[in-house]
């Protein structure tokens, strides 16, 4: 990617004491992308973001922003700005002073400061609260102040650390849409750190999934969900049924395997050619029926319903086969009188298309 705005090359961070927070990570982020760093807490995603901003120093590797090596550039000279998880709005300043702070300390002329501050407040719809102190504002409003304060500096890259985690569920949906809109309006690169798969899937154009300091997979949301590269990614992004299987034979892209509780299966596999594998299939891809399905090209198994949890729009059903395999099935309650249509203890058939199964190396 020649037009990468942020280029991370073999970056590592080892803290004093030997903890390796980030381990040889390389990512290229293109101009105008909405990029997400996704992973469980402690996976190094925030440390990586802080290294991009300059608040942490890498112990190895190189970070380039806009084609320039940032190794010697302190955070106050970098073309990046950050929205902190706690928002870090200055409590002793009004909203207006907060937003204009970054311009005032760098000696921007006062009329320009005034104009740009007003514009930024306009953009986040806070013009009417310019004279307020942060402690008179809600969490969502404080976050907008933090956003305006960063955007007024016109950074090349905006960094957001868990921007939605401190908001309550009702506000989150709205803010998610607003962030997407804002990114399109201002046309700059957003890098967001989150531990919430829903946030990353619904907002980002590309996602890097991290675990234990290393990047597991970089892909678009639907690629990640439907074609996870590893058991970790499959399990972290959404719910998944993982079925142990043993490869018997492999010819080209086709393998034949013996799966626990399902017997012999013929599947497509790009990576694995032998040994033990996991067959991954998402709960919403499984269908449930009272009789054995007729179609020949389906994977099917008989079992007993162990648990039905009704959630209104969907029901989560757990079916146990006689071999002790537990399958989770999400049923969307499409019509009003349906529900899952099954009861605990009932014998049912579970089936799905082989095309919805994915073979993952152990």
């Amino acid at each position, binding site marked *: 990617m020649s037009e990468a705005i942020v280029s991370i090359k073999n970056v590592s961070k080892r803290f004093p004491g030997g903890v390796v927070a980030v381990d040889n990570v390389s990512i290229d982020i293109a101009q105008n992308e909405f990029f997400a760093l996704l992973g469980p807490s402690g996976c190094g995603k925030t440390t990586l973001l802080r290294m991009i*901003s*300059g*608040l942490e120093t890498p112990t190895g590797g190189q970070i380039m922003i806009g084609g320039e090596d940032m190794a010697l550039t*302190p*955070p*106050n*000279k970098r073309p*990046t*700005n*950050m929205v*902190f*998880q*706690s*928002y*870090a*709005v*200055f*409590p*002793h300043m009004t909203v207006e002073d907060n937003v204009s*702070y*970054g311009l005032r*300390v*760098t000696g921007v002329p006062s009329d320009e400061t005034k104009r740009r501050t007003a514009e930024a407040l306009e953009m986040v719809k806070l013009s009417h609260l310019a004279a307020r*102190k*942060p*402690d008179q504002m809600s969490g969502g409003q404080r976050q907008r102040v*933090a956003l305006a*304060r*960063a955007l007024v*500096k016109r950074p090349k890259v905006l960094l957001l650390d868990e921007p939605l985690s401190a908001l309550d569920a009702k506000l989150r949906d709205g803010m998610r849409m607003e962030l997407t809109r804002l990114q399109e309006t201002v046309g700059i690169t957003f890098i967001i750190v989150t531990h919430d798969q829903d946030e990353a899937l619904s907002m980002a154009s590309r996602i890097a999934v991290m675990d234990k300091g290393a990047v597991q997979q970089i892909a678009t949301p639907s690629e990640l969900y439907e074609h996870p590269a590893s058991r970790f990614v499959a399990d972290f992004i959404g719910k998944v049924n993982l079925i142990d299987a043993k490869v018997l034979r492999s010819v080209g892209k086709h393998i034949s395997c013996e799966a626990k509780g399902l017997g012999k299966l013929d599947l497509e596999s790009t990576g694995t050619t032998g040994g033990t594998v996991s067959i991954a299939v998402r709960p919403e891809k499984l269908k449930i029926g009272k009789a054995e399905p007729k179609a020949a090209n389906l994977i099917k198994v008989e079992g007993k319903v162990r648990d039905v949890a009704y959630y209104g729009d969907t029901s989560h059903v757990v079916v146990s086969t006689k071999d002790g395999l537990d399958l989770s099935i999400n049923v969307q309650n499409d019509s009003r009188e349906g529900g899952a249509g099954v009861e605990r203890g009932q014998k049912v058939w579970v089936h799905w298309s082989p095309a919805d199964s994915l073979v993952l190396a152990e």
Partner: protein
Amino acid sequence: MAATLKPGQGPLDYGNRWWLKLLFGFIFFMLYVPIVTLVAFSFNSDKRGIVWRGFTIDNYAKAWKNDALIEALTNSIVIAIIATIIATVIGAMVAIMLWRFRFPFKGAYEGFMALPIVIPEICMGVALLLFFNESGMMSAVVNTPWPINLSNIIIAHVAFCFPFVAVVVRSRLVGFNRQLEEASKDLGASEWQTFWKVLVPFMMPGLVAGALLAFTLSLDDFVITFFTSGPETVTFPVKVYSLVRRGVSPEINAASTVLIVITIVATVLAMKLQAPEKSGKG
């Protein structure tokens, strides 16, 4: 039907028993009677101060005209102001250093710093007297002009006041969100800009509270002042003490009442400023 439990016997009351009320009354009595007596007698027109003979403010006027008392009060206030300024600056710096830096034996130093808070005043007084004597500072200032002759007392007051300032400012800094500092840097501010525009405004309530605390401590101190002052220098508490030895007089009651009022006002202000603020977390 419902709600038949009597009030005062609700499930969560230990009850407003009669003996609790009695105890309450007794405590009130123990606490306030001496103070109330003092204040009341400062308005007593009886010269000997033993029997109540009517309201007057003459005692205050007399105290005001007593040159020795006013000189002592002036000394006390000058000492308190100078000691407070120095103690606040040093205390704030120590607090910032303890909060910010890691260095060897930091925990131990943090504990040691609090020593003057807990060491008996009498021991602190003896120690300072010994120190000033041995170092020759005691005799050095004895014939210097005012206010240089107060130097020893000021040094002694700074030494026992600044740990209080440091503790107050330190506990304020615990509530500081380090991300505010990072945000300031991220927005282009230098370290000194960040210090003056973000950290100092945040510390301000702690600084003022600490200063007020130091001021009252310095103003009220008797023991340490007594040991470190030369024979010629008299502060307000020392003067009151020497007068009381010759018998309690309405004048002393008046002077004491003034000191109590100053102290209470300063303390109430300090406590208001120290109260946890919701804005502290940014």
